[in-house]
């Protein structure tokens, strides 16, 4: 379901950074969230143990996925939930559309679900003439602006309150130029309350689906999933199959990690457990594959499916903070997106594993211990193996590898290189050299270390 963007991460990032004060603001805002996460983590002496447990439970889940899914389906059906299976995003969207048609409903609300973003549900339903209202405040803002979320936990983090004020003035009729967050939130609240009260069908995501109970948990800070699900006569919950955990007791590990990692809160304001439909309500679960079983089959990349979508890796990533979510041109941006999206469409996302310095901070904050930076390295190898690297880069790398494999050629090339930097600086200090654009070249010394060694140390 991925489509080719007409820009690369590097190009979009350059555009983003062109507004440096705004980049600084974006960087500082997300760093503030990272610091909150650090405070929360450091307040629990058992933090690293919790991460290990979470990682192990998820690994167990991935290893026993077939059985857990069968158990979950059986228990969910016994609870009165209707279970649907979707092989890809298209089928996911069609299942939801069919439920809408069968029940002849028009007023639909949706709380945050990155899966529905991944499957492009909003576009699909809009094309069918069905209006869907995103009820997460950040998502509602970007929906008004016909944008996509730039962050999986903080969808409108790329916007300032002035931007929100303009958007609300246009769509909700708020006072022009009134940037007071309290006033703007109040306006959104009133607007969304009307939508909740009128809604006939509510779509939510799923944070955790429990195999032994057939129930599921949805975490929000705004309570919008609850208001939707409790007001509407139909509740559809959408989940990628990796959301499954074996037992309810495992929630004690994940709920402690999720909000601390995401925002530094001890727990999400609402961690709502859904187990069966109330009288007169329909409850559906759509379980989606969309490339996940392919990823499960890739040994090097399988444990990317442990992800609980906390976005800690976004907030810590020095590249993400300075390039913004939209530069990743995918529903899930940031470091985790850069290892998930090549699986969905390698050609369209071949730039993403390179949008990293491999600093490794992402792997360190990950509450389920995904080795994100190592997988970025491994995706780079896959992408070049598939012949997707640019011809010029391939040629340059081949030339470099030949030089470095042959000591005599290396020494000659080094000497020539130093001579050029010294005597013909215009050959390196020009607009063709991306290093030189904002950086001086290193000074060329008279002799290499080896020359010095031969002259001074060789006995």
């Amino acid at each position, binding site marked *: 379901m991925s489509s080719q963007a007409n820009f690369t991460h590097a190009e979009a990032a350059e555009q983003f950074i062109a507004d440096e004060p705004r980049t600084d603001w974006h960087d500082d805002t997300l760093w503030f969230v990272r610091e909150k996460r650090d405070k929360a983590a450091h307040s629990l002496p058992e933090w*690293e143990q919790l991460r290990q447990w979470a990682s192990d439970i998820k690994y167990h889940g991935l290893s026993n996925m077939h059985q857990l899914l069968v158990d979950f389906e059986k228990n969910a059906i016994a609870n009165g939930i209707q279970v649907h299976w979707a092989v890809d995003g298209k089928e996911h969207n069609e299942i939801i559309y069919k439920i809408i048609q069968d029940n002849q409903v028009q007023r639909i609300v949706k709380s945050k679900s990155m899966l529905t973003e991944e499957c492009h549900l909003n576009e699909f339903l809009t094309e069918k003439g069905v209006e869907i209202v995103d009820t997460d405040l950040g998502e509602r803002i970007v929906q008004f602006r016909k944008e996509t979320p730039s962050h999986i936990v903080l969808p409108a983090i790329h916007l300032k309150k002035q931007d929100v004020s303009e958007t609300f003035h246009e769509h909700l009729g708020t006072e022009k130029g009134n940037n007071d967050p309290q006033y703007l939130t109040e306006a959104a609240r009133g607007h969304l309350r009307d939508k909740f009260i009128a809604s006939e069908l509510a779509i939510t995501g799923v944070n955790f689906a429990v195999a032994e109970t057939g129930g599921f948990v949805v975490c929000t800070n705004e309570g919008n999933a609850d208001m939707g699900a409790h007001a509407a006569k139909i509740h559809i919950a959408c989940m990628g199959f990796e959301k499954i955990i074996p037992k309810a007791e495992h929630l004690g590990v994940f709920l402690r990690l999720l909000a601390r990692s995401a925002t530094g809160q001890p727990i999400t304001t609402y961690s709502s457990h859904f187990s069966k439909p109330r009288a007169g309500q329909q409850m559906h679960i759509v379980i989606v594959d969309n490339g996940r079983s392919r990823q499960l089959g890739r040994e090097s990349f399988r444990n990317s499916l442990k992800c609980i979508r906390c976005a800690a890796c976004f907030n810590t990533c020095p590249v993400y903070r300075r390039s913004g979510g939209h530069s990743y041109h995918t529903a899930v941006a940031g470091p985790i997106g850069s290892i998930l999206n090549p699986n969905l469409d390698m050609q369209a996302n071949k730039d993403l594993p390179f949008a990293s310095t491999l600093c490794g901070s992402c792997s360190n904050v990950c509450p389920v211990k995904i080795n994100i930076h190592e997988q970025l390295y491994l995706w780079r190898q896959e992408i070049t193996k598939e012949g997707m690297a640019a011809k010029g880069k391939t040629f340059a790398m081949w030339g470099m590898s030949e030089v470095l494999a042959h000591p005599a050629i290396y020494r000659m090339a080094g000497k020539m290189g130093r001579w050029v930097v010294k005597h013909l600086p215009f050959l390196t200090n020009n607009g063709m050299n991306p290093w030189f654009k904002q*950086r001086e070249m290193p000074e060329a010394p008279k002799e290499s270390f080896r020359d010095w060694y031969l002259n001074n140390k060789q006995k």
Partner: protein
Amino acid sequence: MKIGLFIPCYIDQFYPAVGVASLELLEKLGCDVSFPLNQTCCGQPMANSGFEAMSKGCDKNFVNNFKGFDYIVAPSGSCVLHIKEHLHDEDNPKAADEIRSRVYELTEFLVDILKVTSLQASFPFKVGLHTSCHGQRGLHLASMSELVAPAFSKPETLLNMVKGIEVTRPKRVDECCGFGGTFCVFEEAVSVKMGKDRIGEHQDNDVEYITGVDTSCLMHLEGILKRQGSKIKTIHIAEILNSQL
């Protein structure tokens, strides 16, 4: 104890003083050091760009140069990490295995193997310590701000043995400088922005020098500092530990 000195290619060509300082420092500490003359590169530039398959020639050359040493020591966390994680040689797998387990970054070697507790060095300047990612998060040269674990830093432990030095840390103690190998040219805008932000935090501390265990990070920061016309200089940690100012 025979030590093979590994001087990464760009240090050999552009920063020979770092190699000289590393060699002199090890010899001062009583080590028997040789510099194998046909060494080139660890192969990381190709491998990190996705062309691991093209680094085989480099790997083979590395094994030929460094087999048989008790320890291989290099003034670079990044190159050492690459050797540790990725060095292979189909024709000589045992030698490659041995090298991988015997290769050390300089400060790690000083602290963990030589167990250095004092140094005859003085450097009367205010120095900002840049924590390079591969040395820190890869080789565990220092504790990491993300993890809930006791704090330590091998480079800082050594710097604190230097007379007259004042060591400072930037506000974000271990954020990446943005060098990232070929990232620095293929993602030029982000790379430079990250570097400028690191420099800004060191400037806030009024440092005279920025130091670290990786010349690659320092080369990137130096390029930006010079373009800015800044008075702050970069210097490799080996040069400080070997300094008699």
